[in-house]
């Protein structure tokens, strides 16, 4: 159908041996299919580098987001302390704020911290995910109080309670968050475009666009690059659809 066919075409193009992608009539099934484009884009163009950058940014980004959300959601759900509600509502309210104005100032902040053109500039601003905090708080809320009481009676300290009782119980929420964040970090484009200057730090999104400008005539290579960028996300998505869709619905319902 309409949504899948363009991807099929992209795949077919990346497997073609020669010719431009604008052949009239267009070739659908390449004779013979070849992996040369994939090899080419990885070796002669720095796609391998872009791929590595993306993996690094995504891994660190997900790790940070999970850690921050898991830590922040816990007291908001299971402790009573002065300022708790105020903080929670402030966090929710910030969803209403127009975020795009902040882009400019975030750039300035990172500049002042001398973090422009580093990987940290890419993942740091998104590490505190409101969606993530909200999601984890929900997950902590439904843990029965008896479990917590039992652990305390057994003499567990706060730290042990958190690490060995609470965290394992919110694992599904963490998984959902990880998958949603994976897509976000892997496909990141606008923010890396703004804060990165050296091509050898580019992640796949920015890198692909950069290549398509530099090597405008070698579209088969770019197509292969596009396939390489998309396959991991599709693989993750197909394998873990359930978590994905649940994550989107939770985000929308807010």
């Amino acid at each position, binding site marked *: 159908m309409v949504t899948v066919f363009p991807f099929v075409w992209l795949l077919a193009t990346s497997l073609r041996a020669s010719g431009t992608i604008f052949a009239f009539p267009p070739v659908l099934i390449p004779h013979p299919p070849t992996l040369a484009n994939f090899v080419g884009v990885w070796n002669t163009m720095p796609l391998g580098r872009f791929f590595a950058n993306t993996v690094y940014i995504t891994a660190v980004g997900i790790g940070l987001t999970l850690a921050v959300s898991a830590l*922040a959601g816990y007291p908001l759900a299971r402790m009573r302390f002065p300022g708790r509600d105020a903080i929670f509502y402030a966090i929710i309210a910030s969803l209403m704020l127009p975020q795009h104005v902040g882009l*400019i100032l975030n750039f300035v902040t990172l500049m002042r911290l001398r973090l422009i053109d580093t990987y940290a500039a890419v993942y740091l601003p998104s590490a505190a995910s409101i969606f993530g905090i909200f999601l984890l708080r929900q997950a902590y809320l439904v843990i029965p109080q008896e479990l917590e009481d039992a652990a305390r009676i057994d003499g567990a300290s706060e730290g042990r309670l958190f690490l060995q009782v609470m965290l394992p119980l919110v694992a599904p929420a963490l998984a959902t968050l990880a998958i949603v964040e994976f897509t976000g970090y892997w496909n990141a484009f606008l923010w890396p475009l703004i804060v990165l200057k050296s091509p050898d730090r580019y992640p796949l999104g920015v890198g692909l666009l950069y290549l398509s400008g530099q090597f405008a005539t070698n579209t088969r290579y770019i197509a292969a690059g596009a396939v390489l960028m998309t396959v991991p996300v599709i693989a993750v998505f197909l394998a873990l659809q359930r978590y994905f869709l649940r994550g989107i619905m939770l985000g929308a319902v807010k």
Partner: protein
Amino acid sequence: MDARRTYTAYLFLAPALLLLGVFTFYPVVFGTALSLFEYNVISPPRYVGMANFSQLWSDRYFWIALENSVKYLAVVPVLQFCSIVLALWVRRPVRGIAWFRAAYYLPVVTSIVVVGLLWRWLLDESGLVNYVLLRLGLIGAPIHWLTNPSIALYAVMFVTLWKGLGYYMVIYLAGLGAIPVEYEEAASLDGAGPLTRLWHVTIPLLRPSVLLASTLSAIAALRVFEEVYVMTGGGPVYSTYTLFYYMFDQAFGALHLGYAAAIGVALAVITILLSIVNFRLLRQGGLSYY
């Protein structure tokens, strides 16, 4: 004991509060304030009051960008309509329907760069779309989808539609799932055919989802940037130049950070106004309808 509890709580919250403070609250508040200054990164900010805004008012690029962004809103009703239809379509208990749902969601999880490049190739004068249309006899000569100023914006809007379908489909699936089946059953017991049921029962009950989805969609449409950047670079002749693009160029191209902030504020105001209008239009509905 209480003090220790509070201390622990804030300890846990510290990373989040720090990051949110620095990268979410501070930028939005002070970013808005930045619109009252002139700032080019090299020299310190200089207060200019409303000068940026009055300059904006007489800036023809601002009005061009505004017009394009407003035109872009046309994608919202089309997108919502198609997504609702799609959601209804994939709810049928047909074998393998889950694959369809996944297929429709594929463009959503794909990077906008891949989507943009892909469609840039497909919509090229010698690309696949023109080929199919020519072969089917629907057009006489290749259409310049992305290089004709009167068409380019709509071509990019189509790509936004294509990419967004699955996302809103999921929202509507959730909304449809929340409708108690008794209402539809009662209606068919009363003799209502499927179309009548759809129009008088399902759709009104879906209103909260429509409100949510259309608001999200409208905000996204006003703010569109990435697909334009990848596919047309704002051209041809500024026909796809949107407000966000203008802000981007001014901030990171020309380094007129104060002016860019003013554009951002204008965009934010328009977005808020639109959300209010949307909310009032679609406020009723849902289960309270009955």
